[in-house]
């Protein structure tokens, strides 16, 4: 009982503020949460870089192709971080929730939810980085196959991006086309 009371008290205290301030505060929190997605690409690209160094040390003649594949794969692995950055930027510079009609509580929660949703970017970041690393390793072993390895790697990475896109879609829906406001 005490817990319930505490939460209700907290929410009432929140609502005592100016709704716009509450929404903006929640946007700030959401923007911060969104950037936690940076964990994924960090790990993934680090793995790719390590595999690249290993491949070049094993086969110094393949340095050019290996570096190219590593950069390609790492740039694609970056996507999740970029998507999270986009959501954060939206919430900071083009926040559609300020002028939204609805309960301040719902709007605030949507902002935080949109930010939390982008944390899903960790997964594709790590996964695509792993694909990039393995692709780099393969090209290091057989530089002549660069073309087909890159193709396969890109296709696989595009598929791996899907859950990140799901998260982005939900995030954008929460921000721009929120069905919860009318309920």
């Amino acid at each position, binding site marked *: 009982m005490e817990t319930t009371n505490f939460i209700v008290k907290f929410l009432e205290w929140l609502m005592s503020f100016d709704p716009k301030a509450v929404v903006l505060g929640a946007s700030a929190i959401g923007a911060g949460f969104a950037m936690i997605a940076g964990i994924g690409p960090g790990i993934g690209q680090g793995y790719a870089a390590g595999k690249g160094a290993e491949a070049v040390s094993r086969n110094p003649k393949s340095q050019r192709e290996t570096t190219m594949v590593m*950069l*390609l794969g790492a*740039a694609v692995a970056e*996507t999740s971080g*970029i998507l999270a*950055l986009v959501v954060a930027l939206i919430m900071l510079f083009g926040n559609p929730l300020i002028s939204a009609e609805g309960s301040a509580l719902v709007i605030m929660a949507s902002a935080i939810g949109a930010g939390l949703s982008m944390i899903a970017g960790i997964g594709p970041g790590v996964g695509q980085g792993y694909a990039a690393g393995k692709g780099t390793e393969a090209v290091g072993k057989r530089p002549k196959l660069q073309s087909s390895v890159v193709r396969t790697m*890109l296709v696989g990475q595009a598929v791996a991006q899907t859950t990140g*896109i799901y998260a*982005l879609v939900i995030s954008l829906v929460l921000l721009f086309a929120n069905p919860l406001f009318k309920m």
Partner: protein
Amino acid sequence: MGIEGFGPRVAFFIGDIPVTETVTVTWFIMFVLFVFSFLVTRNMKKEATGVQLVVETIVRTINNLTKQNMGEKNAAFAPYVGTLMLLIGISNIIGLFGLRPPTADLNTTMCLSIMTFVLTQFFGMKSKGIGGYAKGFLEPIPLLLPLNIIGELANPVSLGFRLFGNITAGVIIMTLLYGALGSFTQLLLGLTVPLLQAGIPAVLHIYFDLFAGLLQSFIFTMLTMVFISGAME
């Protein structure tokens, strides 16, 4: 020095429709490319020297890239691939010249990725027949149909947002940096001429505009080629 927002400024209005600097910069790039192509292909000599050599190298590289990634029979895609590569590449770099990159506008990037999406579906249907193409979505299990559809739709979304996010991030960081340097100059040296803006941003420009810009244009082009040729198999 206030920052009123990072969106594209409106250059003028056609009636009610705003024409932003995105569109005007794109017009500028189109004009430059048109004049360049026209002048270079007017008098082509047998021996390639100077500018002609550069142009031939560019065209040859794009042709080879297309043939390598899409197969010999799809070499006719080279002009589209080349358009993507040149347009996105130049758009991304134009930040170095003080103009706002058109690709920092979601409309541009989504337009390009939707074009790619339409081409993918069109050529997929053309080479496999509408029935065969639709059946492709039921593989490996018919139950995965909604996931396959969403996966197919995810491609242009990720393409567009990836390019947009990268370039916009660069734009915002450079704007903030210039603003900060300007404030510092005022603070530290008491000048209104932002001296500190010279030199220091160059390094970041090289990373964000040059490296990331060219890399992203290359990735966009590669993924386009992979998607279209993948749909035709």
